[in-house]
């Protein structure tokens, strides 16, 4: 119980800090409301994706990011159209946060022609380059090179853009991360390593897998590193703003350790999780640390929205998601002969 009390206390401190960061995040009320909507969109997307899996309407499997909305939205709200992201196997949130829409996302999850990748990528490979999303990646740490290379070309071409590499705590075990962080530091590349530490790499707690302190790993290269409450949207936004400003100013890379939690298992089929984490722990995060009501509270306190308005937002997005699912279920599959297309760019 002591641990829980401590966490509650931390929560209160976090809420206080959140209120303080409202102004430093420098967003208009409408921008803040939109950020709230984006988090609700992600949650709605994931709930529907899970339902599709449970009803056996979705081929394969998928990895839910419910609970991690603030890190995706907070980081992406700091970006503009020049910027690129790379995402992970747990990537629906990043995709929505970067501006993707429901219909082509659900179509992709269901392997339909109208999907973002014409059904060739699926949940783990959604790419939406019009919104600067270079794609989710099903190899843990697999996109760390890609993101750092995108930062290199932004610098080389002088676009002023930055690249965000979303990675999970599991990717801290991959050697390539340290190779590219070294080059990012040597060459002062405009890259942000947004490490969503949801505390579990697949079915194992981070304490069993990570020696030392993850921030120190980045700092060893001279990379600015910051730990952020990943459930506090405004804190994430403020940290991302700082990182983006540094990158655009030519001051190089930043590593953000965003402490967060995933409500579902490693993937949708990971139902019985008792051997690696407790129900109490899950309930605690959902009840006390859910980024959506936490930020909703800030909006209420600031008078940016009323409770009724927030409810209406949730309902409207639920309807939008349900409609997109309906649409995707009815949408046609790609023709069989399309399997041979796009092996090579023409």
């Amino acid at each position, binding site marked *: 119980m002591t641990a829980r009390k401590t966490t509650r206390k931390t929560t209160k401190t976090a809420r206080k800090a959140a209120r303080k960061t409202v102004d430093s995040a420098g967003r208009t009320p409408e921008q803040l409301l939109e950020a709230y909507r984006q988090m609700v969109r992600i949650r709605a997307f994931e709930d529907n994706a899970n339902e599709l899996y449970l009803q056996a309407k979705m081929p394969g499997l998928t990895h839910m990011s419910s609970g991690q909305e603030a890190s995706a939205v907070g980081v992406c709200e700091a970006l503009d159209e020049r910027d690129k992201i790379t995402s992970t196997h747990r990537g629906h949130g990043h995709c929505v946060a970067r501006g993707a829409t429901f219909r082509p996302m659900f179509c992709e999850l269901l392997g339909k022609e109208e999907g973002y990748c014409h059904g060739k990528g699926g949940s783990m490979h959604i790419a939406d380059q019009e919104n600067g999303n270079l794609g989710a990646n099903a190899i843990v740490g697999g996109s760390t*090179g*890609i993101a750092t290379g995108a930062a290199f070309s932004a610098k080389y071409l002088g676009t002023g853009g930055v690249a965000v590499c979303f990675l999970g705590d599991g990717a801290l075990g991959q050697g390539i991360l340290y190779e590219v962080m070294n080059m990012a530091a040597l060459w002062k590349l405009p890259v942000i390593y947004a490490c969503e530490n949801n505390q579990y790499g697949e079915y194992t707690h981070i304490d069993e897998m990570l020696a030392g302190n993850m921030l120190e790993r980045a700092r060893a290269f001279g990379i600015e590193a910051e730990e952020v409450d990943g459930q506090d949207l405004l804190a994430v936004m403020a940290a991302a703003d700082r990182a983006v400003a540094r990158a655009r100013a030519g001051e190089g890379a930043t590593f953000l350790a965003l402490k967060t939690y995933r409500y579902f298992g490693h993937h949708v089929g990971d139902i019985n999780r008792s051997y690696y984490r407790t129900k109490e722990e899950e309930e605690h995060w959902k009840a006390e640390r859910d980024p959506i009501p936490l930020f909703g509270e800030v909006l209420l306190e600031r008078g940016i929205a009323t409770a009724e308005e927030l409810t209406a937002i949730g309902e409207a997005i639920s309807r939008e998601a349900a409609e997109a699912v309906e649409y995707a279920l009815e949408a046609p599959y790609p023709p069989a002969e399309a399997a041979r297309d796009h092996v090579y760019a023409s």
Partner: protein
Amino acid sequence: MRTITFSQAVNEAIAEELRRDPTVFLWGEDVAEAGTPFKVLSGLVEEFGPERIIDTPISEPGFVGMAVGAALTGTRPIVDLMFGDFLFLVMDQLCNQAAKQSYMSGGKLKVPMVLRTNLGATRRSAAQHSQSLQALVAHIPGLKVALPSSPREAKGLLKSAVRDDNPVVIFEDKLMYQAKGPVPEPEEEELIPFGQANRLQEGEDLSLVATSSMVQVAEEAAEGLRAEGYSADVIDVRTLVPLDEDTILASVRKTGRVIVLDEGHQSYGATAEIASRIADKAFYHLDAPVTRFGAWDVPVPFSPALEDQTVPDAARTVERALQLIRGEVARA
């Protein structure tokens, strides 16, 4: 046409592409002032500066992965991978990332990058600096594979590779860097298209289909056969992916006999794929079994007394060719 070395041809190709297109850059280990251990890139950093000829740390997965990201976002990287053997270090970035971006994105993403590396044994470099791994790369859909066999090919194929919108792996034969050959003048720009094999010699009795280092072996073998009164078609495959099946099949349909040569290991190698296509599509034109010569299925040994015999040579090729032509092939 002037005569220059293979190494000069590679250098010229890169310099010309760097001058033509500002989005082209090159990186790898010791590529700038050192100009690589083979000195192939000497002088480039002086002309193009360290912003475009970039020395990387010894981090092959890192700089190959970064090249993928750079290629996805508006540049055209040329990556120098010091030894072909280091391909094993970069498999995820090359085969899971570079090769699949176009396909997984439904054609929305492209990776216009070139990975230059090398192949070839008999340099006394032992098992980790001597392999010929082109079949490994050719196995993965989404990658293209070029195998220049002369200075002219080295230049023309590399220039085409830089302009290709796909990831291309070029294997240069380490032993060939100092070899000289005719290359068109710089002002007569020559791009050698992918998927077009080159018939170097015309003959009637046998086809010798070869890649890279084995093209020279095939030419020597053809000469040996001439001394015996026979003539051979010599086909330089040039690119394994895409493969110019038509030229190979037309030759075999004409001669009825074929030896396929490639310096990669024989088992599951490039020769197996080519031989299989011949067996499939030219079966009724064959007068003898399809023969293939690759490197022995052993790690490349260090000692000269051991190493040389593991790579196909002209003498054994001639011997086998004569058996095929004279119908002296023993039945198993």
